[in-house]
């Protein structure tokens, strides 16, 4: 049980995918202009990351590994992720039009989020079992959501702050992200992995 908790803490805070591993930076900057969109994106990513971590684990363990086709890993994982994203969108549209409205365009966009493929590949690299893979994916998406929502809240405030002209817009956002990354380094001593 404790190693599961350790995986969660490690992926959310210590080895945060965005601020420590620098994966998934595109949506981190792309959809962090407003809190609402950031929350929508976070929910969609949490959905997809957890599901695709499970699906890619199953593909690896039951198809690629036994047949000795591990060199097809990357391409097959991308196929799996695309299918999971598509499938999720259909299910969400049917079961909860409200959620579908909130997530909107962000759902399909997740296919190209490199954190999703990163989680799938890291799961294989670190030889996680089924439960660990699922938790790793879930933790990664929690960490992603946490920093994305924090960052979008910061950006909404920075928008009205008196920033030197040369730093307005993306430059100050990049600096903010850098400072956040520095802050998250403080977690590094918390867990010895």
């Amino acid at each position, binding site marked *: 049980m404790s190693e599961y908790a350790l995986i969660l803490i490690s992926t959310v805070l210590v080895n945060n995918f965005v601020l420590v591993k620098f994966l998934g930076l595109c949506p981190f900057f792309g959809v962090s202009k407003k809190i609402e969109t950031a929350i929508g994106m976070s929910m969609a990513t949490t959905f997809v990351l957890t599901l695709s971590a499970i699906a890619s684990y199953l593909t690896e363990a039951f198809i690629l590994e036994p047949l000795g*086709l591990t060199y097809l890993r990357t391409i097959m994982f991308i196929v799996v992720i695309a299918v999971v994203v598509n*499938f999720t969108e259909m299910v969400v549209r049917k079961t909860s039009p409200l959620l579908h409205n909130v997530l909107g365009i962000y759902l399909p966009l997740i296919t190209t989020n490199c954190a999703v493929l990163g989680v799938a590949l890291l799961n294989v690299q670190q030889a996680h079992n089924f439960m660990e893979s699922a938790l790793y994916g879930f933790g990664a998406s929690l960490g992603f959501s946490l920093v994305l929502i924090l960052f979008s809240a910061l950006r909404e405030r920075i928008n009205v702050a008196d920033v030197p002209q040369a730093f307005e817009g993306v430059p100050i956002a990049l600096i903010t992200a850098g400072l956040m990354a520095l802050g998250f380094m403080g977690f590094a001593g918390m867990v010895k992995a």
Partner: protein
Amino acid sequence: MMTAILVAAGLALAFGLLLGIAAQWFHVEGNPLAEKIDALLPQTQCGQCGFPGCKPYAAAIAEGRADINQCPPGGDATIKNLADLLGVEPKPLNADNGTAKTVPMVAVIDEAVCIGCTKCIQACPVDAILGAAKQMHTVIAAECTGCELCIAPCPVDCIDMVPVAIGIEGFRFPYPQTQRVLLAPPLATPTPTVVDQPANAKLDELTRERIVTHG
């Protein structure tokens, strides 16, 4: 080599079948476009677009009988949302339909001129004006919605509308948008009155927003 091709093709086939079945299973009746457009409109029912309300205007847009730039209460934000929904280029507001207020405004009472008649207090729909008979009045800026309803009743014309300066101190996170959009239609039905003046239309929208977001 053969296994690789077979596995890849087999997986692709399986996934394709899965998605195909899922598409059948989870088939959703396509939302009528007019309803989506209606959800984006501000629901002021002001009629400034030339249609009797937001719903008829939405229907007209859906059928291509009206352009997307005829809604002054919604302003540029609504035009942009409509353009995103319909996949067309946003365009400036049609001047024939009125003008939109681009910056938030707040009422300010010139306290030296105010005679303390309390007429503006009665007119204020959000109780943002403080004062008593024969006493000087003043506006609580944080409560003022900029509806301009207090300007007309003032006998000495001492109320001015000034733009709100938004700085880092005055920053407040905006109210959640989705909530308002989702709750607007049921609230809009009991008051289908067509209002002509832009000020009233703006007020209508603002008061509803307050009602919804504050409970």
